[in-house]
């Protein structure tokens, strides 16, 4: 439904190639596209206006560089501006000198407060804290029950009683002190910003527990109204940050931009799935890509890094690069990839993947990996290293051994050969080449997939462009904090990844 902004720009800007600079009229045309893209992404219209003005100021008279296409240059500017708004400071939790550190969650009905409370509790627990939850949502039927169940799953105790929300919060604070809990998370009922009584109530709750952090929980699917909601809550409670929920949907999440711009407080956390672990600190740079419709390659990378065994991955990659990737390696990598979760989930993170491909990846989820594994298991080590020795007899044996047919075996061998070819390309071209190859392959299989689009993407991910994009982030912006709050990971590996052809930058956003 949405073309990526890159595609839109390329259409307008290809004819500008070779020209020295962008004229006013060119810029106007481009800005209209940016405006539409942002509005379709649910960025609030006032914020869009401010934003396009900022972009205009940078684009008019822009000297076009020879190495980047005009489209890429404009995208770079847009991206930098987006990251500048979304990013800035990332919230670093400072724990209260006299525990507990109190965190208050507020928001509209259905934004995901209860779930976010439990996820946040779990996050604190993973940081080595000893949190407690307070269920002060006495409005929605069974809300406290829901919190108790989720708290149980997170291994965090839940306090609540049937009185009134202010009393519950107050008693919860006492209980946390008594038990020596160092973090207290208060879940509250959903309320509309124009409901004066309920806004008063939450003010009283805040007054009673004196929160160190007050977060607004907001749904990533929220439209233009995000701003008035955020303003109202900010006015009432003086927010410290925002928790963005339901980011695992396909909404572009422009609300994040609006809220950040209007409230001026960081988006502290993002919730990306239904499991308690699907919750982490917010990455402004990725959100920028998402709003622009450029997928979330970096999340894929991080996810891969978290779940895959580094040694095995290194071995596999070395094999690919050196052009000696065998079925044995293939099997090993397959097991790695399986650990990352569903393939369709992964594909959804890669930009430019069409609906057909996504559908196809469902089919892969449905057991194709199992079959491939079975076939390779049925081969001898020798066959795995050198599949060319597999003749008719061996084929029948493998098919019988794996409960498949000889044509299945053939199909796998053929695929593997293709893959080897493709992988040789990767070795030469680095990540850019890899994605280019990927585009070519998908282009053959999927009628709706644009190989050109993929190649563009490849160019962006692989080589200087994305590096350029990344470089635009404010210097103080966070690295890509992962999992347990490890040190930003940019520095270490980033040094190896200079820009340039064949650089194979895989941590392009290092700074």
């Amino acid at each position: 439904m949405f073309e990526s902004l890159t595609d839109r720009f390329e259409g307008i800007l290809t004819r500008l190639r070779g020209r020295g600079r962008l004229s006013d009229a060119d810029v106007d045309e481009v800005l209209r596209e940016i405006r539409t893209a942002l509005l379709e992404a649910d960025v609030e219209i006032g914020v869009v206006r401010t934003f396009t003005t900022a972009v205009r100021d940078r684009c008019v008279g822009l000297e076009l560089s020879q190495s980047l296409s005009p489209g890429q240059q404009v995208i770079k500017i847009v991206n930098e501006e987006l990251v500048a708004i979304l990013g800035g400071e990332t919230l670093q939790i400072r724990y209260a000198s006299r525990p507990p550190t109190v965190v208050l969650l507020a928001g509209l009905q259905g934004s995901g407060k209860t779930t976010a409370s439990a996820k946040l509790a779990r996050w604190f627990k993973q940081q080595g804290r000893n949190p407690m939850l307070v269920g002060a949502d006495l409005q929605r039927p069974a809300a406290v029950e829901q919190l108790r169940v989720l708290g149980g799953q997170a291994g965090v105790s839940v306090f609540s009683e049937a009185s009134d929300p202010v009393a519950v919060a107050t008693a919860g604070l006492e209980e946390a002190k008594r038990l020596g809990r160092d973090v207290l998370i208060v879940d509250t009922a959903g309320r509309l910003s124009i409901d004066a009584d309920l806004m008063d109530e939450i003010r009283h709750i805040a007054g009673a527990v004196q929160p160190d952090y007050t977060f607004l929980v907001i749904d990533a699917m929220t439209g233009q109204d995000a701003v008035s909601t955020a303003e109202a809550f900010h006015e009432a409670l003086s927010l410290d940050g925002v928790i963005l929920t339901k980011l695992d949907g396909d909404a572009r999440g422009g609300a994040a931009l609006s809220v950040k711009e209007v409230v001026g407080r960081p988006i502290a956390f993002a919730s990306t799935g239904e499991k308690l672990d699907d919750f982490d600190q917010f990455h402004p740079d990725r959100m920028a890509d998402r709003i622009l419709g450029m997928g979330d390659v970096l999340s894929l990378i991080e996810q891969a890094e978290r779940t895959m065994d580094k040694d095995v991955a290194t071995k596999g990659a070395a094999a690919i690069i050196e052009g000696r990737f065998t079925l044995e390696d293939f099997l090993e990598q397959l097991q790695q990839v399986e650990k990352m979760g569903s393939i369709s989930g992964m594909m959804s993170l890669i930009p430019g993947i069409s609906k057909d491909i996504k559908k196809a990846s469902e089919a892969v989820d449905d057991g194709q990996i199992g079959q491939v594994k079975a076939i390779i298991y049925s081969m001898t080590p020798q066959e795995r290293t050198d599949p060319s020795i597999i003749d008719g007899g061996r084929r029948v044996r493998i098919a019988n051994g794996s409960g498949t047919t000889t044509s299945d075996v053939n199909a796998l061998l053929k695929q593997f050969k293709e893959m080897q070819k493709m992988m040789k390309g990767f070795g030469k071209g680095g990540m850019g080449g890899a994605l280019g190859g990927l585009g070519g392959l998908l282009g053959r299989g999927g009628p709706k997939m644009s190989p050109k689009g993929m190649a563009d993407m490849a160019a962006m991910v692989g080589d200087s462009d994305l590096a350029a994009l990344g470089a635009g982030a404010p210097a103080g912006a966070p690295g890509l904090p992962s999992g347990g709050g490890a040190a930003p990971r940019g520095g270490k590996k980033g040094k190896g990844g200079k820009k340039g052809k064949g650089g194979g930058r895989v941590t392009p956003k290092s700074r």
Partner: protein
Amino acid sequence: MTDAVMVTALADGLLAVVIAVPVLVVGGGIAIAARRRGGPADGDGTSGGVAVAERPSTAAPAPPSAAAPTVETPVEAPAPPVPEPEPEPASYRGRLGKARGLLSGYIGSVRARARIDAATWDDLEEALIRADVGVGATDALLDDLRGRVKSGEIGGPDALVDALKGDLVAMLSTGHAALAEVGADRPAPVEGEPARTVDVWLFVGVNGVGKTTTVGKVATRLSGGGTPVLLAAGDTFRAAAGEQLSLWAERSGADVVRGAEGGDPSSVVFDAVQRAASKGTELVLADTAGRLHNKVNLIEELKKIRRVSDRPPGRVTEVLLVLDATTGQNGLAQAKVFLDAVDVSGVVLTKLDGTAKGGIVVAIQRELGLPVKLVGLGEGAGDLIDFDAEAFVDALF
């Protein structure tokens, strides 16, 4: 069919890609970096694995039942469900009055101008965009009006505003918008099958839009109007969703069929239909778990719920997509997927008592022809009312 074939063909090539990308992404960088540095690759010590695995789909082709759902009958003649005092029935204008300040400003300034100029169009556009009508629908509406202004059909600013409102009302009124009549047009029973004596209304939508609350309100409304209903707690995923629905059942004096948490929702609905048939209840209201429309396995699960609900003695007569008025442009994507998957018959627009205008339903009606049937205007049991296009459009500005 051909679709399936193509998908399989695609899947073949895909596998290689899927394997190669993450391997290269993780291993490649490390290997390359290692080569460059001439030293061994070292990890960065990340931890705290966040998995992508989704909730297990229960869409597996297992026959319904087995989970032995329990039936809760309200305890002995429930003290006549204490309906919260509802001093006045919800009304658009009453409820929306306080939320209408902002947008009326744009329309007011349009009307105040002596003639139609560029600023007029900007104001109208801004008003529509702010109401979440979306760029596509807004452009279409305004382009048409521009043509009519040019041709002289529309004279001044007042006529322009009225024409816009008229267009919106006409657009939102198309399509049959009344709720299905319970028990109407029953098909003649097929031989060898039980007669279809139980209507099923399914409530579907993404997380947090208010499905369970809507089921509770519809139950209250129908029971109050003399139509007994049976509730099926088909949200077996969200913690305590069953409890929440049970509390609504108590309020409305309806029975509720519940399954085990994490159980197969299809079997809950199946059992509810069986129970309704045996008790002679003609309508089952089936709650379902919230699901994001891009989670294919969950959409498959929903399709299965619909199939099972449509087995005699049940038949599905309404599939209501519950949509939160704060939802922006993503609402259209939601409606498309749910319509495609389970043949949605109408939209319930909730939380319209806030500052959000719910303009996305204009785009949904325009592109998909899906009518809005009900509107939620508050948390009380009586705050769910029939959609009224005129009142809605008035409130939009």
